[in-house]
């Protein structure tokens, strides 16, 4: 009997984490801004700093996963080697590839989410 692999090599967690980080960042950024503004604090700067710090943490986490994904994929832009075979190695490379793409997508999404708080000074 084989069990789903959660954390060891070949597991899917590196694929799941980038969107989870984006979702957490999205929620937290909105919470911070909403609670701050609901309390009648007109100036956005302190909330914006908090969101900026959160953004850097989220980007660092995504960067860390991207590193792991690069190792699994064995590179950044390799398209000559196959990743679609029904072999253990191919599967791992495929997951690394997918995770890497998701890292790029979610890093952009996290930056876009944070952008308004850096542009506006008022609630």
């Amino acid at each position: 009997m084989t069990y789903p692999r959660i954390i060891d090599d070949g597991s899917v967690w590196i694929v799941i984490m980038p969107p989870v980080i984006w979702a957490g960042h999205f929620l937290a950024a909105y919470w911070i801004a909403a609670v701050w503004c609901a309390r009648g604090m007109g100036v956005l700067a302190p909330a914006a700093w908090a969101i900026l710090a959160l953004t850097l943490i989220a980007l660092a986490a995504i960067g860390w996963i991207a590193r792991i994904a690069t190792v699994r994929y064995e590179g950044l832009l390799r398209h000559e080697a196959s990743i679609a075979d029904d072999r253990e190695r191919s599967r791992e490379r495929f997951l690394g590839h997918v995770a890497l793409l998701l890292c790029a997508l979610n890093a952009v999404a996290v930056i876009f989410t944070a952008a308004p708080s850096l542009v506006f000074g008022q609630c």
Partner: protein
Amino acid sequence: MRSPGTRTWCGPRLLRLAPLPVLCGCEGRHSWLAGAGAEARAIESLFWPFLIGSAIVWTAVMAFAVFAYRSAASDKGERVGRAVILWGGAVVPTIVVAMLLLTGLLTLRALSARSPALTVQVDGEQWWWRVAYRVPGQAEVVTANEIRLPRGETAELLLTSDDVIHSLWAPALGGKMDMVPGRTNRLTLTPLTIGSWGGLCAEYCGAAHAQMRFEVVVTEPEAFRDWLADEAMPAAPEALSEGGGLDAFLDAGCGACHTIRGTEADGPVGPDLTHVGGRGRIGAGLVPLTAANLSRWISHTDDVKPGVRMPAYPDLAPEALDRLVAFLMALK
């Protein structure tokens, strides 16, 4: 599948249809391309570059798709194709979207940074608009369904609602913002062109939503200040003294819902009628203010505006109705 017949048919047909959406709705008092306000112009100056840019991108992508579809597979093509996907499909779109986001955010910031010379509270009701001018050191001036603004000055509209979500939209002036119960939303408008501009509710709010309209009347600042001073006055004495009109009004019970300042009618439910005779339209922008329309409004309210929250008075004696209408018309 690739028969030449389909291709020659599709091309010209699409070309003929393409300009249609662009041609519709570019004129008139409800057009957001009328450029009657600074905010509308700011948005418009984003719109055209965005539209042209999108058209170029769309054409390029379509041309490229046709080219890719027609070219034969090859090893070199495979490499080039992957590079195109990486740059054309990911990197360049990300940069373009980031630029769009940034210009959008900066425009929004510029719009909300104007400091207002005038504060007007607009309260959305089912299905009309309560309007209150707030001038420092002066009592609030309450009116309804018509928002007067001075040309060239930035007005801050504080938007509220007591019942359901409404949305205030005067397309020609550029603003559109929701009125959410329990919140005060802020919208700034800087009208630049004298005129009477149409406005409407842009958020479905119940039966008469489509008939929930208003007028934005833009005048020169001096004329606006004269008007505001008049509007702050109680009802015209001539109207009150005239042939039993006020009595007819009070006898019919209109005062339970409507306020006429300077009389005992102080109902808070419906629009303030102190200067209703000076407004251009009745029924929340629905029909022009004429004696005939007013008479029909009072006697067959629900026919004029189905779903309306004012009872009809079909049984008023004709003389009472005439006196009532003359009285309301005299409330300038």
